[in-house]
């Protein structure tokens, strides 16, 4: 069995999906098709190591270092790798930069493509039909539900992730943060702002 007995205490009433996944892991383990310890590694990686703090480091670096920002624009995969951030679903990165004129938004209408290396695993709303169906036809409406009302003259560019390219939105640096160091700036960079569903935090809110 894939789990030791201590796991079973809180599973007295397994919900159907929990039971189904447990059964599948059991079968595959009994057949020697998988190593359950490999699953533990995956879970630990995305639960504790890889997440939006990676992306925030990239964005903060781009804010303070114009050369890095330029590199990120030209070759995001290499620029990001220079910060020791790389791996699965980060193989082909594209960084897209918000400006006063244009706001970038990322969606995967066909499944749930998302840049794991810089943002971790996607939130449920990113993978669910409401966002995937509406982001390409009514992005302003969706943004307003997230509390972000863009000026009417701001252009919106939606990037539908239909290939293995993965998009990272670089939000604009908030005003009154000149001279801040990278770590402090990174604290302003939310996950949603790197999908385009928000802005970087204002200094007072950070």
């Amino acid at each position, binding site marked *: 069995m894939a789990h030791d007995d201590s796991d079973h205490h809180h599973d007295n009433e397994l919900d159907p999906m929990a039971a189904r*996944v*447990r059964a599948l892991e*059991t079968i595959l383990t009994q057949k020697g098709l998988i190593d359950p310890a490999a699953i533990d590694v995956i879970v630990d990686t*995305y639960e504790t190591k890889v997440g939006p703090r990676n992306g925030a480091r990239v964005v903060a670096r781009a804010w303070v270092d114009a050369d890095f920002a330029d590199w990120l624009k030209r070759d995001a995969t290499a620029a990001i790798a220079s910060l020791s951030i790389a791996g699965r679903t980060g193989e082909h990165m594209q960084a897209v930069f918000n400006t006063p004129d244009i706001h970038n938004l990322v969606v995967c209408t066909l499944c749930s493509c998302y840049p794991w290396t810089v943002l971790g695993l996607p939130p449920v709303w990113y993978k669910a039909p409401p966002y995937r169906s509406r982001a*390409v*036809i009514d992005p302003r409406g969706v943004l307003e539900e997230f509390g972000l009302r863009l000026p009417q003259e701001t252009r919106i*560019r*939606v990037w539908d992730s239909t290939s293995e390219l993965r998009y990272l939105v670089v939000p604009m640096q908030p005003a009154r943060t000149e001279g801040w160091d990278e770590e402090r700036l990174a604290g302003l960079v939310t996950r949603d702002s790197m999908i385009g569903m928000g802005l970087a935090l204002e200094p007072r809110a950070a």
Partner: protein
Amino acid sequence: MNGPQDLGGQMGFGAVAPEKDEPVFHADWEKRALGLTLVAGAMGHWTLDESRFFRESLHPADYYASSYYEIWIKALEKLLVRHGFVTGEELAQGRALVSGTAPKRVPNASAIAASLARGSPYSRPMAAPPRFKLGERVRTKNFNPAGHTRLPRYARGRLGTVDAVRDGFVFPDTSAHGEGEQPQWLYTVVFNAAEIWGEGADPTLTISIDAWESYIEPA
């Protein structure tokens, strides 16, 4: 295929519902579902594209009633049966009953850690130069294959502009069906919203897709 996955522009799913302080996982089974999907894929018997095709082949009622990890698990079961690793009877009983396909490899913890850190690039060297150039006006094709494609329905037969010439990339439409990688040049093609949504489209909106070379033709 014009399956339940092809959601761009569909309606009736309600509001986007972000969750405050959302955890990475909502239940322990989601952790195992993620891990199982990745380690089973690491046996090397199917491509990412084939996985996607199996997910979008779920009945639409099932697809729309399922969370994403549920979709993953339902598709994984079908993939495992399809490739002879498990039987429906084993899934029903929850235990191994017969021997099945021998796996090409069974990565252990350190092999998986290395593969997560390394990733697996989908770009491929191309012998021929790209057919289209930056700024060129192109029209996406109109087709409705029963198999896998990454050209969404909303973006078919539309006039757009090549916004970027990328690299050669594995072609999902063949890769999903055991027909090989057949890499093609990949382009980012951008459209005005009015070209796609017509009357009432947001005039400030542009939308881009990543399109393989065979998805587009000169305008």
